[in-house]
């Protein structure tokens, strides 16, 4: 009997949220798109602030980039996309190893790229919802202080932990697609996912000794 008031309170809460849900869908979609745009703008702002200063030691910039990359990119999802059907043929240990070395490759590759982009401005030009209602394509125009402006599209997904980037498309070239084409080709010729992991490890090591 004591449960009755509690029960009716719950009922009221459910009814209230249902009413709200019925009222907001359009607004919710619009604000999700807006938030996706803001997410990209804030991420690039942080990157330009923290990664363009040459006075900061390279190792420090690299660890900053790694944190930023982990917090803003869905690395496992990108890794699975890149391996395509081979993801399913890999065992759990290989999947884990691949994601780890893939992160290292990306960090080594992109962490040093930001020097020279101090003072770069980024403008979100358009946010377009994709077929999967939780994904958006955020179009941006990047205007470096010296050099021509260029366009970058960011595929962003709204997940349980917030927004995450799935793909970066520069002037019509998709990072995820390019890597998928290259990695699956290596898997075919180098004897499976383990062969790919080995080659990527070697690449990370040689980049480390070269720097």
């Amino acid at each position, binding site marked *: 009997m004591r449960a009755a008031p509690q029960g009716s309170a719950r009922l009221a809460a459910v009814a209230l949220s249902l009413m709200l849900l019925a009222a907001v869908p359009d607004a919710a979609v619009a604000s999700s798109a807006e938030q996706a745009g803001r997410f990209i703008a804030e991420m690039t702002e942080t990157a330009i602030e923290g990664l363009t200063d040459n006075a900061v030691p390279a190792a420090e910039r690299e660890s900053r980039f790694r944190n930023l990359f982990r917090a803003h990119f869905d690395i496992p999802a990108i890794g*699975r996309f890149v391996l395509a*059907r081979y993801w399913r043929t890999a*065992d759990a240990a290989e999947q884990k190893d691949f994601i780890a070395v893939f992160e290292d490759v990306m960090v080594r590759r992109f962490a040093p790229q930001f020097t020279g982009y101090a003072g770069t401005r980024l403008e979100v030009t358009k946010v377009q919802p994709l077929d999967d209602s939780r994904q958006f394509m955020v179009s941006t125009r990047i205007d470096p202080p010296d050099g021509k402006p260029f366009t970058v599209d960011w595929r962003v997904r709204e997940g349980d932990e917030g927004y995450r980037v799935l793909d970066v498309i520069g002037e019509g070239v998709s990072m995820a697609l390019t890597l998928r084409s290259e990695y699956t080709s290596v898997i075919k010729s180098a004897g499976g996912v383990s062969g790919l992991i080995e080659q990527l490890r070697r690449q990370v090591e040689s980049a480390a000794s070269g720097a």
Partner: protein
Amino acid sequence: MLSGLRHLLAVLAIALLATGCATSQPDTGGEPWPSAEGDGAYEAEYDNDPLELPNRFIFAFNEMLDFAVFRPVAVTYRFLVPEPVRDSVRNFLRNLSAPVILANDLLQGELDRAEATATRFAINSTAGLLGLFDVAEGMGYEYHDEDFGQTLAVYGMGEGVYLVLPVLGPSSIRDGVGLVVDSYLDPLTYVADNNDAEDWMLVRRAVAGIDFRARNIETLDDLKRDSIDFYARIRSLYRQTRANEINNGAPATDGPTPGLYSLDFEFDAEGDQVDTSAN
């Protein structure tokens, strides 16, 4: 010499067109890159490269040629010739190709772009001193490229299959055919033929190649250092860049070639990434 090159291209294109018809693109539900379902034929489908073996062979040959000739010449050219002169060389070559670009603008029904090309040609050939200076750009008529391979794509022709051409590099059956047709669309071809000056057409191609190579020394070095399969990376970059050029930079969201916007990252309805791995 030029007619020799054209002949080679024509033979290649025709020989491979037969292959292309036989292995015409599989039905991928209208998507150029089918999602990661399916059997072993799947890379062959989305890389569209059934001739990978001969392509890799020619690619290796081109790399060797690049290492031994093109890259050193490009480095020397960039070192010896000051930038304004190099820019004038490029302006001059671009102006020479204006008739071909104009023809393709018109064939694609792109009237605004055709007008820009025609205006550029008129201004730069006169005020720009035979094309040495790009004064039209400052007046709001920006340069754009266009070729018959793109025109064929606009008409709905698929790329056939991916091809690596000797010396000329990444291409496709469609783009190879385009190269041949472009040389017939070019008034200079006929001028040269009538004056026994075919060699100059070859010189023009060579200089354009060196100019392009000199502008991309670091980019290509980086790309190569960065790759674990340079051939596969170049193939992917070429095909994506062409798709982007064909759409004139607009993302292909709808229409006959759904592009990068419809890549499938395989999230299911609950928002979990589909995982059917056997572990």
